[in-house]
């Protein structure tokens, strides 16, 4: 089934990493996928975003005009992307940095999570908020299995950080757990 | 109490877009201070180059022309030849000035065009994401010298200051750094001199400023700052290699 998501936040919040990871997870499941990062001057000034499209069929547009889902890690990103969402879409919101009150849409499914706290609690490390967010999104959307994401970690992570795979896995699972209930 | 340090008036209130710890901000401030010092703001025209300093116009409260990559010196020449009573300066990175713009700066210098060139040498292409520059140090890794700059393949860090000093045209050719408060003070003085030369009509003045790029050097701001003294200055010695005195003026 067709699915798309835009992920956005500050540079340094690991946006590109979880975008890539999701793409690798789709490949694990033999799905088609495109990953389109923001680039160049857009990257200066500290913001970053990417669009991931997953489908069983060949992918037409890798550009996502009206996203089905968002992972939002900071305030400017919510302001920029929320208005473009399709009605009924899912937003995973980093409540640690952005108050849900900033949201202006009532026709979407806003999932506000204290990502830092969940990360600290679930993975023993406050810096895996991005993985928590991805875990939550994957669980909520069902676009791929959380296990596929975990299996994809070894492709998406630089071998230097493979020793961090267990912690990442825990963060992903903590994110999934946070939206399961 | 009196305010002993504040933002220069030739500078706007807009915060810089530069990365944390990037020396571009210090150099911007020193140039603005020199304009303030001689009260030049209202008669100055800045020529922005393409590189991390492309947004010059957001930060300087002066008229600005954005030059194509590498061509700032030629654009400045064009402007100055028409408006010879205005102050015209370029602000260029090492990719801009020492690679694609080599010819333009050398000929402006050789003609003795009465402009001021501020050359920010951070030994890397900052804006485009960390490729090798002609000033990249031997052995330095960059995205296009992933195994380190190799003198057999890539040649040597190019010394623009030394080359320009070999010409008869320039009135001032100097290299400074801004890695310590003391060096900042010395740089302030030289940049001021450079504009003074232009005000006095002595011709082409050129200041190379050794600068950091923490982002593309893959270093913390402090480590990057330390690299200036440890690696950059040994390769690019600080000195004023050429300075005309008043008698040289026609």
């Amino acid at each position, binding site marked *: 089934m067709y699915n798309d998501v835009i992920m956005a936040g*500050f540079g*340094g919040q690991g946006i590109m990493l979880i975008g890539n990871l999701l793409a690798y997870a789709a490949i694990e499941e033999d799905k088609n996928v495109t990953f389109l990062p923001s680039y160049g001057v857009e990257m200066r000034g*500290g913001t970053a975003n990417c669009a991931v499209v997953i489908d069983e069929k060949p992918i037409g547009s890798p550009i996502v005009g009206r996203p089905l889902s968002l992972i939002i890690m*900071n305030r400017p990103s919510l302001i920029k992307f929320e208005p473009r969402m399709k009605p009924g879409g899912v937003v995973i919101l980093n409540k640690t*940095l952005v108050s849900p009150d900033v949201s202006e849409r009532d026709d979407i499914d806003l999932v506000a999570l204290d990502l830092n706290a969940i990360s600290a609690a679930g993975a023993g490390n406050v810096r895996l908020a991005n993985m928590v967010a991805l875990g939550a999104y994957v669980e909520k959307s069902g676009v791929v299995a959380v296990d596929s994401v975990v299996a994809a970690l070894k492709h998406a992570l630089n071998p230097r950080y493979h020793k961090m795979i267990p912690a990442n896995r825990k963060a992903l699972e903590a994110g999934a757990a946070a939206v399961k209930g | *109490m*009196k*305010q*002993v*340090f*504040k*933002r220069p008036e030739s*500078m706007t209130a807009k*915060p*810089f877009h*530069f*990365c*944390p*710890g*990037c*020396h*571009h*901000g*210090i150099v911007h*401030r020193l140039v603005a201070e020199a304009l303030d010092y001689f009260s030049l703001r209202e008669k100055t025209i800045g020529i922005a180059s393409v590189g991390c300093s492309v947004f010059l116009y957001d930060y300087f409260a002066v008229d600005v022309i954005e030059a194509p990559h590498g061509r700032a010196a030629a654009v400045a020449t064009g402007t100055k030849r028409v408006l010879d009573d205005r102050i015209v300066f370029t602000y260029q990175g090492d990719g801009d000035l020492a690679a694609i713009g080599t010819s333009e700066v050398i000929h402006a210098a050789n003609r003795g065009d009465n402009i001021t060139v501020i050359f920010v040498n951070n030994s890397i292409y900052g804006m485009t994401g960390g490729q090798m520059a002609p000033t990249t140090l031997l052995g330095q890794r960059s995205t296009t010298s992933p195994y380190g700059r190799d003198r057999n393949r890539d040649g040597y860090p190019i010394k623009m200051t030394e080359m320009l000093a070999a010409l008869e045209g320039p009135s001032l050719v100097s290299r400074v750094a801004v890695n*310590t*408060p003391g060096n*900042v*003070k010395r740089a302030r003085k030289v940049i001021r001199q450079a504009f003074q030369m232009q005000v006095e009509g002595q011709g082409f003045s050129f200041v190379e400023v050794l600068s950091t790029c*923490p982002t593309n050097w893959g270093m913390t*701001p*402090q480590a990057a*700052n330390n690299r200036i003294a440890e690696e950059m200055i040994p390769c690019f010695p600080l000195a004023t290699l050429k300075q005309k005195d008043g008698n040289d003026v026609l």
Partner: protein
Amino acid sequence: MARVEIEIERCKGCALCVDACPEQVLAPGNEINLGGYQYVVAVNPDDCIGCCRCAEMCPDVALAVWR
């Protein structure tokens, strides 16, 4: 009788001022500003001697000094 002032929204937390200050007046803070940066704070404001070394080194013109 000297004083340093930090313009929080200009500060990028690079800490070059921290290293430059001879009196350890400044230190990295814990708060994040709107740009997402952990800005610097004056931890020993009264020790400031107004030497401006911090401001000279600040790449973001985030510091003002009185003396």
